[in-house]
Each structure stands twice: as C-alpha cells, then as structure tokens.
C-alpha cells in the first residue's frame, strides 16, 4: 500500500466520520458537535492565528467560529466536504473580524506601510513556531492574509478577491509582495 492510498483512505474515513457527526449536530446533538470541534478546531485555530497574527484574537475568533457554526450548521447541505465548508465559514468570520477591528486611525495611517522589520508582534507568541510562520506573522496585514489564503489554504486569487472585496490584480500583487518580503526576511537568517 503506497502513501497516497493511505492518505486517500484517511480522508475518506474522516469524511464519513464528519458526515455522521454533522447529521447528528444538525439535529441538536451537542456531543456530536463537540466531536466535530475536537476534529477541526486545531485547523481552524491555525487559520485564525495565521490570518490575525495575534494569539488572543485568534482564540476569541476561533471560539466565535464554532459558536456561529452551531447556529449555521443547518445550512450545510453536503454539497462540499464539511471541512471545506467550515473553512470558508471561518475565513469569512476572520475577514469580518479584521474589518471591524480597523479603526479610523488605522485607515488613515495604513498598517500596510508596516514592514517586516518594524513588526511589533510579541515574540512570546512565536515560541514554538517555524521560522517561516514567524516571518508570515510579521508581514503587513493584507499581504499576510492574501499569502495565507493563497499559499497555505489553497484559495484562488478570484476567490480571495471576492472575499476581501478587492480586484483580482490586487490579490496577485499582494501575494507577490508577500513572497518578496518573505524571501528577503528568510535570506537574512
């Protein structure tokens, strides 16, 4: 049995496991919902952490994702994998959080100008992170979010542009900006 067969089998098993739990959670079974949380929260938290670059916000937003999921789980119709649907719900909640978080001061003095070397993200958050994750956290917000969605989460630029209400070209430009900032930062190590 080769590695890809093992991975396929694991994915199939987790898909079936999700389906049963989702059906039960849709009927109001909190234990099933807790099991779904156990299966998926680490991945959702990673998405929140990478997009928000702040541990406390990531924890709060990850909680919010599952609270909203409990309300919205009835909307899931099984047209895609549950994990895919959950990630799109989570991504939209994180983006909504980022929009709310921005105050007028940030809009005027755009945090886009913040550069890698000027980042003030507390290093205590980075204790067990890979070097690349540390550098991603230090990227300017829009470049970071686009990079995480495109390179790590596998969204297309068209999807990112629609979610972030920007032009497709801007999404591509932010991605190239993120890549060159990361290459520069990693080269200095």
């Amino acid at each position, binding site marked *: 049995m080769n590695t890809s067969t093992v991975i396929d089998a694991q994915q199939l098993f987790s898909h079936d496991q999700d389906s049963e739990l989702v059906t039960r959670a849709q009927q109001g079974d909190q234990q099933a919902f807790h099991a779904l949380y156990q299966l998926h*929260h680490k991945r959702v938290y990673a998405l929140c952490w990478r997009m928000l670059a702040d541990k406390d916000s990531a*924890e709060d937003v990850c909680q919010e994702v599952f609270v909203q999921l409990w309300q919205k789980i009835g909307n899931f119709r099984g047209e895609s994998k549950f994990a895919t649907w959950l990630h799109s719900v989570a991504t939209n909640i994180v983006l909504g959080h980022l929009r709310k978080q921005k105050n007028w001061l940030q809009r005027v003095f755009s945090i886009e100008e913040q550069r890698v070397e000027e980042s003030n993200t507390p290093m205590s958050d980075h204790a067990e992170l890979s070097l690349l994750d540390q550098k991603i956290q230090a990227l300017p917000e829009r470049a970071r979010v686009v990079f995480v969605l495109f390179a*790590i989460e596998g969204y297309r630029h068209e999807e990112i542009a629609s979610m972030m209400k920007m032009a497709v070209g801007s999404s591509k430009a932010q991605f190239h900006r993120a890549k060159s900032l990361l290459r520069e930062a990693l080269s200095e190590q």
Partner: protein
Amino acid sequence: MKNEITDVSLQQQVDELSKEMSPERDLWPGIEKAMAKQSRSNVKRPFYPVAWAATVVVAVLVSWLSFSPQPGTSTSNVDIAQVMQQDFNEQKQLMLVNLGQPDLKQLSPDMQKQFDELKKAQQAISKALENDPTSVELLNLLRWTQKQELDLLKQIYSPKWQTI
C-alpha cells in the same frame, strides 16, 4: 551573509508548515456556554409568545368566520391582501437570500411549530377577508402575522457577535 531564497524553496517551506495549531487555552467551555445561552434566548423567550399570539389569532378568526355576514360586492381589501401577501413573499425570499438561504426544514420542532402557527393564522385571515372584504382589522392582523414571521426568521438566522 545572505542565503538566497528562491520561489521553489519558499514553496517547499510552505508545504512543510503544520496545518494544525493548538490554542493555549481550552476554547470549548466558552463555546459551550455561548451555545447554552443561545438555546435559552432562542428557544424559550422569543418563540412561545409568537405561537401563543398566532393561536389566539386563529381562534378569533374561527369565531369571526362563524358569525360574519355573507360576502358583499366590494373586493378591494381582498385585492390589497393579495398584494400584501405577494410583497411579503418577496421580502421573505430576499431575507432568506441575505441570510444565506437556510434550509427551513432543518428547524427544530419547536421553531417549526411557530412558523406553522403563523402560516395557519395567515390562511385563516385570508379566508376571513373573503367573507368580510371591508375589514381593516383583518388586514392589520394579516400584516402583523407577516411581520412576526419575518422577525422570527431574522431572530433565528441573523449572525450575532457573541461575547464569550
């Protein structure tokens, strides 16, 4: 000394990133608390008065139908009711689209009951209007039940920011 990083090696590092991370604190108790709070506020408080009121509407209309005069020549309020019902259906559709087109069949039996009661009330009012087409009170009642249904949908499906 600089160590040049290519796109390929950057991509390799990206592929090696862990897809999962563990939060430092246990997030589940907060989620569970918010879920319990939602169940209390969604199920007990707002929905029962609606069912009760809709039931009263049906009861009043049954009496109305029994004692009301035979239909007259005027059909103006019946026409208005039809237009109101069309407007209401459009508003409801628009609201459901805005709320992400939730599947109403997935509602809990309690919530389903609230919608059934409102539907029955609307049907009873429409029938009563055919018998008493000049009644403004019936039109107001119809408007009230439609508003209750829209409010109920909004209450159930509108995303809420929870303080955990």
